[in-house]
């Protein structure tokens, strides 16, 4: 039987929560592996690649050969956050798996601080230079696209819906990462107050035993969620049919053909004129060029 929580008795004999059970971590590892293998097999059997070929559409006029998808600023954020996240996951779970990482706590909190810095940078960048609300809003088109996506998943006859710059599945993933990140960050900062860092005077009694247990448990659940989220993220980034996404995050652009195949020009209009304006003014024009329009 899988245990969800670790509990103990505090010095006053009260039964208190102290964190998530490590069984949960192993469950997440197994689930992630099952999902990846299951998805790969299912995808192959369903023949989705045929849909992708069907989805190729004529290229709208005025679309440049290279369509800018991620500005340099956005890519720097993405890869810094990835490094921080991977470091956090490795230092959190690898010692539990039995492999010793000297000073893992120090590495962990430093990576956590880097993560917080990247998230702050991302929020400022997204609000100031990107179309923040088109990623964050939940308009009718969002749900329409979601419904079409679900139809596509359950029926081999339903074509894959084309999205804006940020398709439905990407946005859902982004929202899941927001929830898990915020949970990990808020609880992580409280946990940092219990250890030696330059930021706080160590105080293990800042919150009660019971509250600390809840904080540790939320942090653990967020960590376990990240095992699933990051495993699936890396899997999709490496899949041959999705590798253009990985390359767009490396190079910043997608080709005209990829744009025509995977995006709806109405939801993500791109023209030569806008592209040249972007290249003239750099990242400041990011929103002007590539802002998703569907829920605007």
């Amino acid at each position, binding site marked *: 039987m899988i245990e969800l929580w670790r509990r103990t008795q505090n010095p006053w004999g009260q039964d208190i929560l102290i964190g998530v059970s490590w069984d949960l971590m192993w469950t997440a590892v197994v689930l992630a592996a099952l999902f990846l293998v299951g998805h790969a097999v299912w995808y192959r059997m369903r023949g989705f690649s045929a849909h992708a070929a069907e989805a190729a559409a004529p290229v709208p006029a005025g679309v440049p050969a290279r369509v800018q998808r991620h500005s340099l600023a956005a890519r720097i954020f993405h890869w810094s956050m990835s490094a921080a996240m991977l470091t956090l996951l490795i230092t959190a779970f690898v010692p539990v798996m039995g492999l010793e*990482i000297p000073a893992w706590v120090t590495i962990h909190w430093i990576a956590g601080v880097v993560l917080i810095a990247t998230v702050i940078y991302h929020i400022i960048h997204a609000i100031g230079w990107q179309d923040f609300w088109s990623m964050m809003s939940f308009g009718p088109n969002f749900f329409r696209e979601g419904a079409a996506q679900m139809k596509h998943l359950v029926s081999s006859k339903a074509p894959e819906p084309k999205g804006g710059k940020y398709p439905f599945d990407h946005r859902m993933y982004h929202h899941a990462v927001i929830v898990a990140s915020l949970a990990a960050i808020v609880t992580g900062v409280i946990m940092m107050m*219990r250890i030696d860092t330059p930021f706080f005077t160590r105080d293990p009694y800042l919150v009660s035993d019971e509250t600390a247990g809840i904080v540790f448990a939320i942090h653990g659940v967020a960590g376990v969620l990240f095992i699933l989220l990051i495993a699936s993220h890396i899997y999709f980034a490496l899949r041959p049919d999705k590798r253009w996404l990985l390359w767009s995050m490396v190079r910043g652009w997608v080709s005209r053909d990829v744009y025509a195949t995977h995006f709806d020009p109405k939801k993500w209009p791109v023209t030569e004129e806008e592209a040249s304006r972007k290249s003239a003014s750099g990242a400041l024009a990011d929103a002007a060029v590539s802002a998703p329009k569907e829920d605007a």
Partner: protein
Amino acid sequence: MATMKDMIAPFDLVQPTTIEDAVDILRDAGDEAWVLAGGLDTMDWLKDRIKRPRVVVDIGAIEELRGIREAEAGGLEIGAMTTLTEVANHARVRSEFSVLATAAEHVATPQIRNQGTLGGNVSQDTRCWYYRSGWPCYRAGGNVCYASAPLAMNREHCIMGRSRCVAVNPSDTAPALIALDARMVVQSPRRRMYEAEDFFIGPSVDIERMTVLEPGDLLTQIYVPDFWANSSFYFEKVRDRGSWDFQLVSVAAAFRMSGNTIEDARIAVNGVAPYPVRLDAVERLVRGETPTETVQNAAGDLAVQGARALRHNDYKIPMMRNLVRRAVRSVAA
């Protein structure tokens, strides 16, 4: 009929007579096993009802683990079950590796040294009373260090090497073995050998262990090479009482001299960190130097660099500084 409930939790007592049998039993029982050597640390844990192993493996009947032998490669092989009295009284230990004999003599009382073993002394758990009282601290699998709280009683705790946990290693013989560059032989299904300083681990590596020993492991032997035989040794242990007490701070040092010059040195301190600390920077400092007062002071100052006191143990910083000074002074002409 009245039922007595407050007893040591029941366990299966197993008394193997060979190392192989002991290792098999330990492997099968995994983390439910407890190795019983001299029993001095063990009995505290069991009688306090804090550790509740399912299987207690008494290794007292394994003759291979007892005694001190000449090693083929030179030096001494000391069985992990050799008592501290035997170590302290052994002729060659006393004459060639006297720092170990002195350290063993400083452990607790004659009665305890008659029963306590060298393997047990280096493998014993920390004496942090929050932890020993069964409080759910980090070391006990919880998520708090009670000893580092603002109002905690932490006079005996660490001034360096802390990582969440601030407990110290209590072993008297550990710094002496590090000074002698001893090797610890650990048997599980496979045999491993660790340098003494690597045998002890801090909370940044694993907060629930003080040594590399994991469930299924058995410390079988301590090998003392003869490289440091007949060197100039120094051991000093500062404690609250004249006898039968754990160290506040202790130092063990070995010096190879060439005239008035320190040709080589190994210095270790215990009671200041969750593991015995080898002072390799100090060793580099004194190597090739004449131990003048300036060098002694510099060694002491360097030893405590980075030390950070808790609320009640700032006295340990000058104490450590002075012990290291005195160790270096011991080889001054």
